[in-house]
């Protein structure tokens, strides 16, 4: 667990024009460029100027919707997005220090494909890749694939035991999925490529391993077609809101994104996940717990509040979020983060309400403020994302020591 003097880790969650539904209407927004590489390159370059640990890129296998359970037909919101892994890959060669953590939906996709795509992201970024895994419980997304019919969920049904059971299964499947990702990443030992001209052998096949995973949702033979990535194991992250999602974070991830609304909740969540981690035998592993916050930031607190009000007026509704919403100055935010950090969170994933404004407030306001307090890096101290997060390059589970 971090103490109050360890540095704070900072990530930024990129999504469209920002997390507020009216963000795209801001003067500095570039809504017509959301599908261009240059837009994303500029945002990630800004985050890298701020020396942030990593960016996440949101994704989904369906159109965005204001309704949590059904599609909507709104025309006044950003709709449509590019594949997040490919955005990250497009950015990777043009950045040097920042980690790249795209979202991958696990409920509908093949672990074999996602394993090699994240391994390849690790190669094209020379060791800065991660993946934020996400379940998809939406019936409309399932219909895009036609493999399995998911029941239609609604807000009222969320406490229904049958629905709970269904959600539990999605997370059980996600845990199997991450197990397959991790085994495939290890399915080549680091020194498997030998290029031995005398024997004509390119690889030492004894250093390639079948993973032989057999589970309820899929069986995967292996080995991967892609050699072990530079970090050995790229970072696995997930967002959780309690219950089975915390078990998933504890059992399967390196970074959990959680949504406390005050320091007490932050402390409780950190303790809860830490206990779950020990219960599954991962007490020795570092699992970072990052607090998610939506941020509206300005040099004057009044200006930030006024901006939020103006955006809410444009959107026609008060902005709500699963995460805490912070409105104020970067220095005030630094106070909150410092307090929550002391309560047991090792870092934060900030969701900028608007882009690029709130991102620049983070890189030019928050990061220097935390640095003044001795709580944030002054330069990239490691070449890999694992290194930035203080995680060693893990031994290969299949290698004989």
């Amino acid at each position, binding site marked *: 667990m971090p103490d109050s003097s360890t540095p704070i880790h900072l990530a930024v969650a990129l999504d469209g024009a920002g997390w507020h539904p*009216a963000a*795209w*209407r*801001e*003067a500095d*927004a570039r*809504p*017509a460029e959301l*599908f*261009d*590489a240059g837009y994303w*390159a500029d945002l990630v370059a800004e985050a890298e100027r701020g020396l942030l640990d990593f960016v996440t890129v949101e994704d989904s296998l*369906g159109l*965005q919707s204001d309704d949590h359970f059904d*599609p909507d*037909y709104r*025309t006044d919101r*950003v*709709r*449509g997005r*590019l*594949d997040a*892994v*490919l*955005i990250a890959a497009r950015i*990777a*060669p043009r950045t040097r220090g920042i980690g790249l953590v795209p979202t991958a939906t696990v409920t*509908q996709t*093949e672990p*074999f*494909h996602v394993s090699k*795509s994240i*391994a*390849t*992201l690790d*190669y*094209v970024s020379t060791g800065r890749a991660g993946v934020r895994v996400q379940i998809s419980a939406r019936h*409309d997304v399932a*219909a*895009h*694939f*036609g*493999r399995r019919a998911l029941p239609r969920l609604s807000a009222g049904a969320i406490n229904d035991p049958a629905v709970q059971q269904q959600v539990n299964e999605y997370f059980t499947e996600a845990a199997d999925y991450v197990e397959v990702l991790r085994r495939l990443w290890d399915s*080549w030992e680091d020194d498997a490529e030998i*290029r031995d001209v005398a*024997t*004509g*052998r*390119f*690889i030492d*096949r004894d250093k*390639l391993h079948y993973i032989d995973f057999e589970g309820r*949702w*899929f069986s*995967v*033979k*292996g*080995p991967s*077609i892609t*050699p072990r990535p530079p970090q050995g194991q790229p970072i696995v992250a997930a967002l959780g809101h309690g219950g089975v999602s915390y078990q998933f974070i504890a059992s399967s991830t390196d970074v959990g994104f959680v949504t406390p609304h005050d320091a007490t909740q932050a402390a409780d969540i950190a303790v809860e996940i830490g206990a779950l981690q020990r219960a599954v035998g991962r007490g020795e592993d570092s699992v970072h717990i990052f607090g998610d916050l939506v941020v509206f930031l300005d040099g004057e607190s009044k200006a930030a509040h006024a901006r939020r009000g103006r955006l809410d007026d444009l959107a026609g509704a008060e902005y709500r979020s699963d995460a805490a919403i912070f409105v104020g100055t970067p220095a005030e935010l630094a106070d909150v983060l410092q307090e929550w950090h002391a309560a047991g969170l090792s870092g934060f994933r900030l969701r900028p309400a608007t882009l690029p404004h709130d991102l620049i407030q983070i890189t030019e306001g928050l990061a220097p403020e935390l640095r003044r307090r001795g709580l944030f890096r002054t330069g990239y101290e490691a070449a890999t994302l694992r290194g930035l997060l203080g995680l060693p390059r893990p031994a290969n589970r299949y290698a004989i020591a």
Partner: protein
Amino acid sequence: MSKPIKQIHLAAHFPGVNNTTVWSDPAGGSHIDFSSFAQFAQTAERGKFDFLFLAEGLRLREQNGQIYDLDVVGRPDTFTVLAALAAVTDRVGLTGTINSTFNEPYEVARQFASLDHLSGGRAAWNVVTSWDAFTGENFRRGGFLAEDQRYDRARTFLQTTQELFDSWRGDEIVADKESGVFLSNPHAGEFAHKDAHFDIHGRFNVPRSPQGRPVIFQAGDSDQGRDFAAHGADAIFSRHSTLGAGQEFYEDVKGRLARYGRRRDELLILPAATFVIGDTDAEAEEIAREVRLAQVSPQTAIKFLEQLWNRDLSDHDPDGPLPSVDPVVGENTISRGRASVRMFRDSIAIANEWRAKAEAENLTTRELIVEVMGRQSFVGSAQTVAATINDFVQADASDGFILVPHITPGGLDPFVDHVVPLLQERGVFRADYTGTTLRDHLGLAPLPAPRRSASPDAATGVAS
């Protein structure tokens, strides 16, 4: 009236996971590090090539029940490496081989549409199908398909992705900050598709990309494959790189286009071709011989022999005569995950041909294998290679070539440095790119925006 002079199309195939690639050459670099891909792609772009081409295999090959270890093994994910290459190149097309058996239309469509956006209209898809449960062991659905269903699924897969690409017309994103209208059509992206293979509906979530859809390549050579290409592909990646076979294939496939209401110039024929360039023709021949020998190490010769003999020949001497025992007839069990073994339809007859040839020419096993592997497509001085390539294209043996160098990543350099300038001097190859998209490079007309038929409102005549 004389025939108009054709412009040649050139592409670069990243050296493959097979014995064409001479990894033992001291100049041979990494097949995985991004720097190799970047260097290769930038060389192709320096040569004003139409596109870069990546193959794919979703299970490591095996022989005698073990992972095949003599060739280059391992490759990156196709989509991911192409998206990264879009960052270090500006014009060259980015063609990925993606299997329609082990993917779903929605996901593949959004990956290609995303790649097309992120590359400014340079994406292409080489559609391949897979038949084997062996590869299927890496996937949820197992994926075994009877051979006669392969093209059926591939055809409907392609048709379904086409419907997804066309679910956005390209004019929906208004993004008018003042009025607050982001989308002009609330139904943008709607689709519904139902057939024997796919039953899907909903809304596609990637707006129409610069090219409308990726350029479509097809690689199969069967009668079904040729029809598949004539029906819906923009280009064929063929294997007929000799003049006679090339002309026959070219005429056959181009002849099928009219049946589908298409013009002859709407489908390009681009065979794979290997090359060796020397200062003189004689020097090139000498180098080519050395390369062929390097491509068939003693160990590789035995493995190749086993693929035809369909039995373990690990004790056979590669420097001795061919085995006296006959091949095991029937299903090939010795080698898995490799397309070429299916070509051995009558192994006994082929073995007898090989024996006759070895005896007549006094060849050892390894020398015989080197001979039957065939020589490189183009061998000679830069002048000879440029002239030969141009002759092939003007004689309608192809519309150009997908060049397969035998060294990673520098194997393309001699061609770009010495042959391309000669083709440019002849006026048969572009001196510079004149367009930005791959369709531009290939001389394919821009796709028209789809009619607004995806919207139920439009379909029922209700004004929105």
